[in-house]
């Protein structure tokens, strides 16, 4: 494996509440190579979006990073000062937010929002920044004349494309996509993902793609990480996870989201509901919903162990 672009070790993120901290990301280890697409899947509220924003250190209060190391391009993100973070943000690591409607400033034009991003990091003239903003828009398939538009004047799909143009403005090494297509219909969603794929091949940036739609993610990603109740339960190449998932939760997810081309068989959801992070069950957090749980699962947290080439799973029971 080449030197990782991003390496996360032992990362813990807590939300401080009146009744003590609630752990939303629990001892997570992850690696990402340059140019790689890593998918992170899990039910809503499992901590996957928290992880994404923690990497940029833009999680608003009451979040704190409680433990771990994040190394990005050889530098320790958790030890960075405010100016260092500002230098890293967007220039090296950027993000597409879940809802572009909420993520765009409603009272300034999208052109201004693209240009101020460029101007904040590069010593170019205002005219040059606007020219580049126009080129960025065209790159995501929006005519440059729309630079003067406001967010509310664009369709949902266009707004999300603007979000992508924003993320690519400084040609970063890593782009985090935080459920970038949840607000869109299926056709627009597919179109946008295909577009990102093309851009990724030409520009060569790495991607962390966060979604709750496992099927979509398996098509899109090189490698996949499955989150359950703040913890990673399985990591592996997309092809392996698709054909030979190891963790019972991943298997459940796959059954719950039958692929378009899969042979007949109704969607079958996992019984029960995900646990509250406030009072997680002891041992393996999936055991109350797990069809194959044994006594040990109730007591001990299973380690994430290698079960195949590049394939890790946190289940000592499944075969």
């Amino acid at each position: 494996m080449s030197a990782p672009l991003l390496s996360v070790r032992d990362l813990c993120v807590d939300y401080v509440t009146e009744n003590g901290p609630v752990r939303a990301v629990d001892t997570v280890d992850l690696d990402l190579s340059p140019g790689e697409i890593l998918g992170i899947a899990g039910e809503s509220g499992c901590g996957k979006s928290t992880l994404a924003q923690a990497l940029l250190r833009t999680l608003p209060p009451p979040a704190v990073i409680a433990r771990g190391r994040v190394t990005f391009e050889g530098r320790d993100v958790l030890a960075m000062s405010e100016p260092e973070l500002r230098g890293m943000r967007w220039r090296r690591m950027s993000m597409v937010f879940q809802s572009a409607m909420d993520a765009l400033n409603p009272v300034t034009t999208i052109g201004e929002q693209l240009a101020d991003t460029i101007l904040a990091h590069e010593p170019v003239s205002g005219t040059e920044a606007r020219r580049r903003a126009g080129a960025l828009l065209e790159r995501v398939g929006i005519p440059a004349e729309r630079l003067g538009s406001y967010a509310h004047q664009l369709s949902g799909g266009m707004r999300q494309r603007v979000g992508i143009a924003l993320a690519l403005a400084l040609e970063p090494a890593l782009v985090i996509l935080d459920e970038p297509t949840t607000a869109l219909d299926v056709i627009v969603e597919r179109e946008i993902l295909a577009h990102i794929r093309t851009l990724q091949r030409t520009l060569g940036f790495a991607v962390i793609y966060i979604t709750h739609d496992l099927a979509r993610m398996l098509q899109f990603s090189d490698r996949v990480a499955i989150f359950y109740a703040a913890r990673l339960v399985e990591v592996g190449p997309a092809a392996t996870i698709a054909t030979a998932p190891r963790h019972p939760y991943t298997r459940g997810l796959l059954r719950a989201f039958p692929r378009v081309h899969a042979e007949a068989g109704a969607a079958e959801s996992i019984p029960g509901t995900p646990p509250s992070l406030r009072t997680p069950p002891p041992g393996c957090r999936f055991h109350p919903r797990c069809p194959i749980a044994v006594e040990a699962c109730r007591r001990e947290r299973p380690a994430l162990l290698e079960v195949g080439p590049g394939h890790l799973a946190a289940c000592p029971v499944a075969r």
Partner: protein
Amino acid sequence: MHYLLRRLGFYLLAAWAALTINFFLPRLMPGDPASTLFARFKGKLDPAAIEALRATFGLTDAPLWRQYLTSLGHVLQGDLGVSIAYFPSPVAEVIGTGLGWTLFLAGSAVIVSFAIGTLLGVVAAWWRRGWADSWLPSTLIFVGAFPYFWLAMAALYVLGFTLGWFPLGHAYSDDAVPGWTWAFTADVLRHAALPMTTIVLVTLGGWLLTMRNTMISLLGSDYVNLARAKGLPSAQVALRYAARNALLPSVTGFGMALGFVLGGSLLTEIVFSYPGQGYLLVQAVRAQDYPLMQGIFLVITLAVLGTNWLVDLIYLWLDPRTRDAGS
């Protein structure tokens, strides 16, 4: 523009409501309005004045709806009747002498206060728990809790009367020659300084709190978060993203607080014997000059409505969403 026309329609409705209140108030008094009203003035006023009062209110033998239409017609022609305190001057003329001073004093005080208060609100919200956030809101709430005119009295007593730094009243010195000269302008500003400062001080806290609270809630919004994630300089995140959006509710509040502030500034005028509507109002109350009181109410209302429409224009300019929804 659809939006501005709709607003204009609303202000016309409000103006009509003010006119109607003015028409019915004298008639709502217990008993026969004409005789009650005139009994109050018996012996105090000469018959000519009583006749003028009757004409002003349109208290004739005609049916009510005709009286109403006649009265509306008079107002539309700018005829507000005859003043009792300044008999036989017409009310419109009496009000005209002081209107400029009131608009100047209240207008500049409101703008200065809004600008400073809003700016301080941005500072308090951005540097949460900093010096501005820790003691400014409480201090300004305390200052703002004083009645306008009381703060005016205290300021006049300490800074004008005891220390002699400021003139004791009026809009300009007795020996000043009115005109567009530097000397006269400076004289006017010197006289306006103290009343203006008291109005600004009383209203500052309100603007600060409005801006601070909106901005704090916007600091958690996605677009402010994205601006931060984009690595924009702090000042840009605070001003172009958070404050620029937080300004919108403040501007709406500005329109609504206008009538309130104007009321307070009338009381301040009284303390400083400032020759505006407040001074006229106190004369009107003392002389039970109903036509003048109602005239002042009407004119102040129109000023507030007109300014509100200007505020709507500014809002339209600030918010592209309203702009599009309106056309």
